[in-house]
């Protein structure tokens, strides 16, 4: 039997394309990802330390030879285990971030989420997430220092860190994924991260998953602002091997290649999973304080 590959390919593409849904909210999701990344770049620029210390931190995660074969097996094992943990975990995520991008908290429950950043003295600085406006879940952005807020359409969060955008989001503040087991499964399966061992956190022997470093040329405006040309980001996730829910996320950003000394910042988000009580769920929503002025765009804040 001879094969008409061209016809089969055409027909196969048609059949495959029929399964592709109509996308929604992609532009909003992209805008949010971009904004989070800018936060991370800003943090890296503010935190600036010597390049030498940064260089020591960025060690390639992939091994070689026999070591890497073992690593691939371990990762494959975790991929197979995570599949079994894909049943929805109806818990409230509470993340507390410290480090380069200042203290912040992150609450999430399903599509609801609240990221709040504080000043060094503990005053709220900005909030970004969902609020109930007219009974509808809506994305908002609040800046406390000038008492303003705006609508910031919500996205669905990254489904994996396989793309550069997903990886950069993971290295920024907050913990962006919605369905963690699915996120971990997809990210390990595409090779954007590998299992790199274990670490004891809070009495739990967690599985350490290291994302591959990503490097991106800064936009001219960003490059001029911080006098660097490149951004290199990396993230590491520590997951509970029983539930495959994360207990810690660390991200690091390194800018270099300009006339100024390179800068490096790292942030660590410690995550707890709480019961979905009314009080906990309430914390996953941003509250717009009375008297704050509404502006058309986050760009005006």
């Amino acid at each position: 039997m001879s094969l008409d590959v061209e016809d089969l390919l055409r027909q196969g593409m048609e059949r495959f394309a029929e399964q592709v849904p109509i996308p929604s909210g992609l532009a909003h999701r992209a805008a949010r990802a971009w904004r989070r990344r800018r936060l991370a770049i800003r943090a890296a620029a503010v935190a600036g330390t010597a390049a030498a210390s940064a260089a020591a931190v960025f060690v390639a995660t992939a091994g070689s030879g026999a070591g890497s074969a073992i690593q691939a097996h371990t990762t494959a094992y975790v991929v197979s285990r995570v599949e079994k943990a894909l049943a929805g975990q109806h818990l409230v995520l509470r993340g507390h971030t410290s480090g380069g991008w200042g203290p912040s908290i992150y609450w999430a429950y399903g599509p609801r989420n609240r990221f709040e950043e504080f000043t060094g003295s503990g005053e709220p600085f900005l909030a970004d997430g969902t609020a109930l406006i007219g009974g509808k879940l809506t994305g908002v952005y609040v800046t406390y220092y000038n008492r303003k807020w705006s609508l910031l359409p919500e996205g669905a969060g990254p489904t994996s860190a396989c793309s550069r955008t997903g990886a950069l989001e993971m290295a920024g503040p907050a913990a962006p994924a919605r369905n963690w087991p699915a996120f971990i499964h997809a990210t390990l399966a595409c090779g954007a991260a590998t299992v790199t061992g274990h670490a004891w956190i809070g009495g739990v022997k967690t599985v350490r998953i290291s994302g591959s470093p990503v490097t991106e040329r800064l936009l001219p405006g960003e490059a001029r602002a911080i006098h660097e040309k490149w951004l290199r980001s990396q993230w590491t996730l520590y997951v509970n091997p029983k539930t495959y829910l994360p207990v810690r996320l660390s991200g690091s950003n390194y800018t270099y290649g300009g006339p100024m000394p390179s800068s490096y910042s790292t942030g660590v988000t410690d995550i707890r999973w709480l019961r979905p009580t009314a009080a906990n769920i309430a914390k996953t929503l941003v509250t717009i304080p009375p008297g704050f002025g509404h502006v058309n765009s986050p760009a005006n804040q």
Partner: protein
Amino acid sequence: MALDQRVEDLEQFLARRGQALLRTAALLAGSVEAGEDLLQAAIERLLRQRSRVDGDPEGYLRRTLCNLATDEFRRQSRWRRKLRLLQAEAPRSADATVGVDLRDAMVRLLGQLPSQQRTVLVLRYWEQLNGPETAELLGCSEDAVKSAASRGLRRLRELAGGLEREEMQLQDMSARTGDGS
């Protein structure tokens, strides 16, 4: 133009053309989920390139999808080699492969081609672009496009031939054990 206005404009554009772009992205990336990520990354780039948002963004998005797909493929190629080794170790059941539809398999086999060959085939057979249009989109010569298409099809024939032989053997095996009735 303010960011939120540009985002709104883009959402309106994507409501019209998003599915077509996502289909291309999914074919380039190998799955719907990976395609969504790819398209989102392309949109983010578009949002960052303020001057290019005005006017029709489709050409820019299509070109960026192709470039990003190539980057992703290069990054993942080492990992794919490892996974292939792991998959080779796993036992395969005859039942699971009986009835494999070669048309569906062909799309999966696309993912095994080098990035340029895969991109050229997606542009030719899905986007219906001709040689000069493909060359312009990818920023290469028409000869390079012809060569990539020819090598890609040849490789697909080899891979599909292997699948077909394997399936026939499995069907024979099933028939001999009485499972094929």
